[in-house]
């Protein structure tokens, strides 16, 4: 076709090559989403992330107000500043969503995660595991002659570090809760 100066036989033209020129720095943000605890509400939130191609790094949910039937979903997500803004705005559109807080930008926040780690081993390794657990203030919540189950709380980074240390010492299994977070101060 002469008008487009596209050679006969070429194919690589798409209508969707339309990326905007926003910043492409990836940021990690922790969002707290207060929702009505009704059937399907978690599916709505997760469906939003998968449907629009957003990332979920961690997600926790539980009812926080049994009389008002409100749940709090804490989600750690990663994206460019523009994508993070979109995620918040899109979350806000969901009808049973009451509040969306970006704890990463709304001032200081505490973030904690709980993990259980099963470590099996004998001899020096077993002693070393126990010593490191002490340093990390992890508790032994189950023990046999060949294994421990440690309970540890802290930031996700602290748990990552502890798990990395346990790996050569016989780490068998890890269960993590995902992040719970609250803003600091009285508000």
């Amino acid at each position: 076709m002469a008008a487009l100066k596209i050679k006969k036989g070429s194919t690589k033209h798409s209508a969707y090559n339309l990326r905007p020129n926003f910043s492409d720095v990836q940021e990690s943000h922790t969002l707290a989403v207060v929702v009505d605890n009704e059937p399907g509400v978690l599916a709505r939130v997760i469906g939003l992330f998968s449907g629009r191609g957003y990332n979920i790094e961690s997600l926790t949910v539980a009812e926080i107000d049994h009389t008002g039937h409100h749940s709090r979903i804490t989600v750690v997500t990663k994206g460019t500043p523009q994508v993070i803004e979109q995620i918040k705005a899109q979350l806000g559109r969901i009808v049973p969503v009451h509040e969306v807080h970006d704890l990463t930008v709304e001032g200081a926040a505490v973030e904690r995660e709980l993990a259980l780690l099963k470590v099996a081993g004998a001899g020096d390794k077993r002693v070393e595991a126990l010593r490191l657990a002490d340093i990390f203030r992890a508790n032994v919540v189950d023990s046999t002659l060949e294994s421990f189950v440690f309970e540890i709380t802290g930031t996700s980074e602290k748990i990552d570090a502890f798990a990395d240390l346990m790996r050569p010492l016989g780490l068998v299994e890890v269960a993590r809760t995902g992040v719970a977070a609250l803003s600091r101060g009285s508000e």
Partner: protein
Amino acid sequence: MEPHAPPSNGRGLFYVKELVTLDTERQMTRQMTGAKMVVQALKDQGVDTVFGYPGGAVLPIYDEIFQQNDIRHILVRHEQGAVHAAEGYARSTGKVGVALVTSGPGATNAVTGLTDALLDSIPILVITGQVPTFMIGSDAFQEADTVGITRPCTKHNWLAKDTATLAETLHQAFHVASSGRPGPVLVDIPKDVQFASAGYTPPEKTNNTNYQPQMSGDIESINELVEALESAERPVFYTGGGVINSGPKASKLLRELVEATGIPITSTLMGLGAYPASGKHWLGMLGMHGLYEANMAMHDCDLMINIGARFDDRITGLIDAFSPGSKKAHIDIDPSSINKVIKTDIPIVGDVASVLDDILKVWKARGRNINREAIANWTGQINEWRKVDCLKFTQQGKTIKPQYALKRLEELTKSHDRYITTEVGQHQMWAAQYLNFEDPNRWMTSGGLGTMGYGFPASIGVQMAHPESLVINVAGEASWLMNMQEMGTAVQFRLPVKQFILNNERLGMVRQWQELLHGERYSHSWSEALPDFVKLAEAFGAKGILCSDPADLDDAIMEMINHDGPVIFDCLVEKHENCFPMIPSGKPHNEMLLGEASTQGAIEAGGAVLV
């Protein structure tokens, strides 16, 4: 009928439970079955028409419909038709459109219409039947996870598990569908919930506090916009479907603002009619198949005021080159529309009518200032662009050009009380280009989803809402076939909808893209084995008209208009006509193709117009 399997728990499949309550307040509320509640809630919400199709899981509701006369039920021939008809009804009235379908296949057939309504922000309520609550999850006959399937294609949906809260849920559904950015909602009602009885909650006792979108815009941003407007040298209004969704007041205020400031105005496909096509400052539609002057004005403006549009990719073209020198204001009731695609300098979250009202007040209070001299120059520039005459075509020979067909249709119907729907394809774009819309709610087309098969059922919905008006569906032969079964509906309910088919025996828009972008390899883009549309019309008991000669066109159109009943108008048109202007995908606005209309002047004016 499809009876459900007998109950396994011995409770009786469809028990009717009379609620006896001693609570005095509860005694004042009227006890009724869930099925009756549905009809009562629709009546209380002012619904007069429901488009639907029965089946096992909605029989109790159909039984109630049978026993009353306030709500008219239109039996469609396919559930997709019911939803598009509800959309047509909603778009042409501003009210919530209602469709009623059965469980399983009835619900899945509604999915396309729901998605269509979601993308175009059309308020509709779809009520689906569901298998009884105690059978949910058992893969019962005609069970589908309707709320799961429709979650991503509704604004919100509900599984009504309890008759006691059913009425409140239905009222909330109307509230959610019609407030804020409108959209489709769905209420899934298990059959046992329809049979059981409980107290009816009227609309005024319904709690809607959970969902209250912000209506008025931030006054500081509005001030900032007015300041920008006062000093702008090359401003343009870019308006969209949000103006129409906001209601007639928004269109009225928009007209007032445009007339008072003299700022040129363009609109998306969805916003046509909010500002009249005959208006002095009208630039025509913008976007991929928009007018040259509209797209050039968007590209070269220094202040863009987006009112209820969403920077869709059909509008922006190449984002990096989209209106590079302009300050951008964006008025939208949905905060997620702002900064989604294009960075906005002045964001204003609020309802269009409310924000326009404030803009006018502030602008008047500050002395009605405008940079008159600069705007006069800008208008001069725009008038130069207009001279390109990008919609020019020549009708010659014995074959009807589709543009000519629409031009004649416009000429012969413009004085009528007229509503237009369309299917999707080239004919849709030509209709947007060559028909003129003077008022909002007169133009119903599938913009966001681009749903072939939308226009015919939508025309039925429009005709139901406006029985005395002239309702025309501008169609392509391929799209029209997608919901042609609705001829039965049109004939049964004596709906005199006019199906104006621009028959190019091609999937014209696909053919055009293949010609322009895929090396002229016409893979499966023609319509073979087409029916004889005149005989088809007659087979349904309607009137068919065939026209192939430009000389006969006017008489044939008049015959269509004057026939008191549904008509299929088979207008044989040029098979290989392309729709221009066209911004090729991924190109900036000022690299528009003008096709056959391109002239020497266009190149000079545009600088970089490809020919």
